[in-house]
C-alpha cells in the first residue's frame, strides 16, 4: 500500500515524465557509444558526452527559461532568435572595431551594448503586448522578422569573426574544469528561480496567465508584469546570443539562433508548462531543453540518416507530448499512471480547459524544429 502510494506520488510529480524521457534518451545512446556516461579529465578540462550535452544545450536552456515566464503570463515570444542574432552581431562588431580585441573593458562594453539592445527589444515587445493590446504572437513576430534584418545591417550582411580571449570565455572557455557556460546557465537559472519564487512575482505571473480578468479585478498591475517578463526573456536570449557568438568567435546575423524560438517553446511545453499560461516550472523547462539537446546528440550517435533527422525528431517529440497528457496515459497504461480525473470531455462546448491542453498544442510545432 505505502509503496504503491509512494509510486503514485512519484509518477504524478510534474517532473516525472520529462525526467523519464531524458533518462530513456540518454540510455538509448549506450549501445552505440559504450562510454557515453564516462567523463574524462584531459588537460585540466572535463570531457564527455554529458558535459557536451549541457554545453551545447546552454543557449537553449537560457532562451527557454526566459520563454517560460512569458508563456506563463499567457504570452509567447517569437523574437528570441532575432535577439540572439542582434546581440551577437552588436557585440562582435563592436569588438572587431577595437584596436585591442583582448582588452577587458572593450569586451565588457560590447556585452553591455548587446544586453542593452535586448532590453530595448523586450520593452518594445512588452509595450505592444501590454499597452497596445496586440496579440503576443503578432507583436513579437515584428522583431522576429525585422530583427534579423537589423542584425544583418550591423554585420553588413557578412559573418564577422573576432579574436578575443576574454570574449571567448563565455561560450567556449573553461573554469574549474567545466565549461564556463554551464556556470552562466546555473546563475541565470538560480536568479530566475529566486526572482520568481522568493518574491511574489511567480504568483502574480501565474495569476495573470491563469485568469487575466480576475487578476485585473484583484488589483494586480498586469501591464507592468507583462513588460517585465518580455524584457527578462529578451535578456535571457541576449546572454544566449553572446554565448553562441563567443563559442564560434563569430557573429552570423543570418543563422545565429535560427529557429531557437521553436525549440525553446518545445522545451517549455515538454517541461510541463501549459501554453495557455498559468502554472510554470523553471525546473521542468531546464529538463525539457536537455531533452531536446539530448535528442539532437542521439540523432548523431545512433546515425539517423540526415534526411530523416527531422522526421525522427518530430516522432520523439510527439511521443513526449503524448506521455505528458494524462488522458493518453490513462488510455494506454490504465488508470494507475493516468490522471484520476478521467476524461475532459471533448464535446463540452466549453472554453478549453487548461490542464490537458499543453501537450496537444505543442504537436503542430514540431515539423519546423
Amino acid at each position, binding site marked *: 500500500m505505502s509503496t504503491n502510494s509512494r509510486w503514485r506520488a512519484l509518477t*504524478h510529480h510534474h517532473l516525472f515524465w520529462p525526467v523519464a524521457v531524458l533518462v530513456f534518451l540518454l540510455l538509448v545512446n549506450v549501445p552505440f557509444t559504450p562510454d557515453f556516461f564516462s567523463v574524462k579529465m584531459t588537460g585540466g578540462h572535463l570531457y564527455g558526452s554529458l558535459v557536451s550535452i549541457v554545453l551545447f544545450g546552454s543557449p537553449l536552456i537560457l532562451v527557454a527559461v526566459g520563454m517560460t515566464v512569458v508563456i506563463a503570463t499567457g504570452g509567447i515570444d517569437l523574437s528570441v532568435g532575432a535577439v540572439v542574432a542582434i546581440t551577437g552581431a552588436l557585440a562582435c562588431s563592436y569588438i572587431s572595431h577595437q584596436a585591442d580585441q583582448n582588452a577587458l573593458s572593450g569586451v565588457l562594453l560590447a556585452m553591455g551594448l548587446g544586453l542593452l539592445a535586448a532590453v530595448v527589444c523586450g520593452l518594445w515587445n512588452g509595450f505592444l503586448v501590454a499597452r497596445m493590446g496586440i496579440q503576443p504572437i503578432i507583436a513579437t513576430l515584428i522583431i522576429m522578422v525585422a530583427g534579423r534584418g537589423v542584425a544583418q545591417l550591423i554585420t553588413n550582411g557578412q559573418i564577422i569573426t573576432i579574436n578575443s580571449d576574454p570574449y571567448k570565455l563565455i561560450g567556449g572557455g573553461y573554469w574549474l574544469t567545466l565549461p564556463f557556460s554551464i556556470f552562466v546557465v546555473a546563475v541565470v537559472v538560480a536568479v530566475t528561480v529566486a526572482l520568481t519564487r*522568493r*518574491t*511574489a*512575482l511567480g*504568483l*502574480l505571473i*501565474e*495569476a495573470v496567465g*491563469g*485568469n487575466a*480578468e*480576475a*487578476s*485585473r*479585478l*484583484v*488589483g*494586480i*498591475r498586469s501591464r507592468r*508584469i507583462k513588460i517585465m517578463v518580455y524584457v527578462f526573456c529578451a535578456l535571457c536570449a541576449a546572454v544566449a546570443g553572446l554565448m553562441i557568438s563567443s563559442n564560434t568567435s563569430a557573429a552570423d546575423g543570418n543563422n545565429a539562433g535560427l529557429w531557437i524560438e521553436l525549440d525553446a517553446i518545445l522545451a517549455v511545453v515538454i517541461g510541463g508548462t501549459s501554453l495557455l499560461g*498559468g*502554472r510554470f516550472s523553471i525546473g521542468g523547462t531546464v529538463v525539457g531543453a536537455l531533452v531536446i539537446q539530448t535528442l539532437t546528440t542521439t540523432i548523431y550517435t545512433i546515425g539517423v540518416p540526415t534526411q530523416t533527422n527531422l522526421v525522427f525528431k518530430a516522432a520523439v517529440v510527439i511521443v513526449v507530448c503524448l506521455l505528458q497528457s494524462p488522458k493518453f496515459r*490513462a488510455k494506454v497504461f490504465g*488508470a494507475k499512471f493516468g490522471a*484520476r*480525473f*478521467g*476524461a*475532459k*470531455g*471533448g*464535446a*463540452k*462546448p*466549453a*472554453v478549453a480547459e*487548461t*490542464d490537458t491542453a499543453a501537450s496537444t498544442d505543442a504537436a503542430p510545432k514540431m515539423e519546423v524544429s
Partner: protein
Amino acid sequence: MAEPRPVLQMTGIVKEFPGVRALSDVDFRLFPGEIHALMGENGAGKSTLIKVLTGVYSLDGGTITLDGRSVLFGSPLQAQQAGISTVYQEVNLCPNLSVAENIFIGREPTRMGRIQWKRMRKEAAELVDRLGLDIDVTAPLSSYPLAVQQLVAIVRSVGTGDSDGQGSGTKVLVLDEPTSSLDRDEVQELFRLMRRLKDEGVAILFVSHFLDQIYEICDRMTVLRNGTLVGEHMVADLDQVGLIQLMIGKALDQLEELHDQQLHSDVGETLLTAEGLGRTGGIAPFDLEIKKGEVLGLAGLLGSGRTELARLLFGADQPDSGKVTIGGKQLSMSAPNAAIGAGVAFCSENRKAEGLVPDLTVRENIILALQAARGWTRPIPVAQRDELVAKYIKALDIRPANPEARVGQLSGGNQQKVLLARWLITQPKLLILDEPTRGIDVGAKAEIQKLVVSLSEEGMSVLYIAAELEEVLRLSHTIGVLRDRRLVAQLANGPEITSSRIMETIASGEHQ
C-alpha cells in the same frame, strides 16, 4: 400504486479524487416524468455524481443503467446523444460567440455541410422566446450578465431534443444549480418549462440550495452527505427542518436566529460618495452615499443594473461621468487599483470568469488580493501567510480544509467561500458583495449573512447584492432600488419596508 420502472438507475457509485473520496457507494434513481432534487451541503458530491453520470469524469465503481440498458459514457457528447441533457454548475459556454451560436454549438443546423445561419438564428430566437426571454440572439454572450448566460445554458440543454437530426430527444434533463443567479420571474419561467417537460415524460434532476424552490417544484429527493447516500424521500413526506437535519447531520437553529436578528448597529459618518456616476449602456448617472458600518442592499430585477453600479464604484468599468470620493479623496477611476488602495473590495458574482484562478491553490487564491496590494517585491512572510489562510479556511469552513488544494477542484460553494476569504483578508473599509451566497448551502448561507452583520457592527461598510429580496431586506440598513439601469429610490430599512413594498417601488418606476 406500482412504481414504474426508473429511466435512470445508478448503483453503488464510487468516485475518488487524489486524497478525496467524493462518492462512496451512492445509489440514485430517476423516474420518467418526475422532478427529483439532489440535496446536500457544499462538497457533498452532487456535481460529482452528475459529472460521473454524464461522462465528464470516469467511474471508479458502480453501474449506470439508462432505460434498462447498462451504459457508460466516455464524454458529455455521448451522454447527450443518449438523451441526457445537462446544465453544469459553472456556466460553460463560449463568451465571444453569439447567443445563437452558443445554443447550437456542436449541432448547428446544416445543409450539404454548410451551416444554415439564418435558420440557426431563427430557431435560437424561438427557443429563447419559449423561456420568455427578451434577448438578441445575435449579440455575443459576454454582453449579457451571468444570469442571462445561465438561462442561455438552460435553453441550450432543453433545445437539444428539438432540433431535427438529433433523433432521440431528451429523456433526462440534469440541472445543476440553474437558478443560483436568477430572480423570481426567471425562476418561475424555468419552472413552467420544467413542468411542461415533466408532463412530456422527461425525468429531471434538479440541484438547488434554495429549499423553497425544492418544495415548490420537486416530487422526490435524494440526500447526500460527505459523498455517501443518506436517503431517498418523497418531498411531501419530509419538511424543511427534517431535510436540513439530514443534509448536515444535526439540527440547525441558526436560520431561525437570523430571522430574529435585527440590524441595530448604528452607522457612522460618510465613507463613500458617488456623484453623477454613470456609464452609457451600463447605468444612468446616480448619486450614492455609503456610511461607515452601513449595509446598503441593492434590490432590482435581473438586468436592472445592480452589478453595473457595483462595478462602477469599484472602477472595474470606467465611468463616463461623475466621481467617487472616499474619505474626502477623489478616486481615479481608470483601474480598480485606486479603489482597492482606498479600501474597497469587490467579490464578483462570476467567480469563474472574474474571480478565481482555477489552477492556483486555495492558499494562493486567498492571498492574491493582499499580495497584489503589497506588490511583488514584498511577499507576505510565510508564517503570517499560513496563519491568515488557516484562519479564514476555518472561519468560512472551506472544505477540504487543505490550503494546497487546487481551487478548480473545489465544489462550487467552497469556491465561493475562497473568493470571500480573499477579500476579507484585506480588511477592506467597503466590501462589495455581488451575490455572495450564490451556490452556498443553507447552513453556510446563514453563516455568511451573520458574518455580514458582524462585519458591519465592527464598522465595515457593505454593499450587498442578492437575487433573493428577503436576504437583502434582512441585512440592509438602506435599500437602493434599481429599475431599468437607474437607481430609482433609496429607502431606509424599517418595519414598514417589506418585499412587496419594494416590488411596488420597482414596478411603479415603470410609470415614470
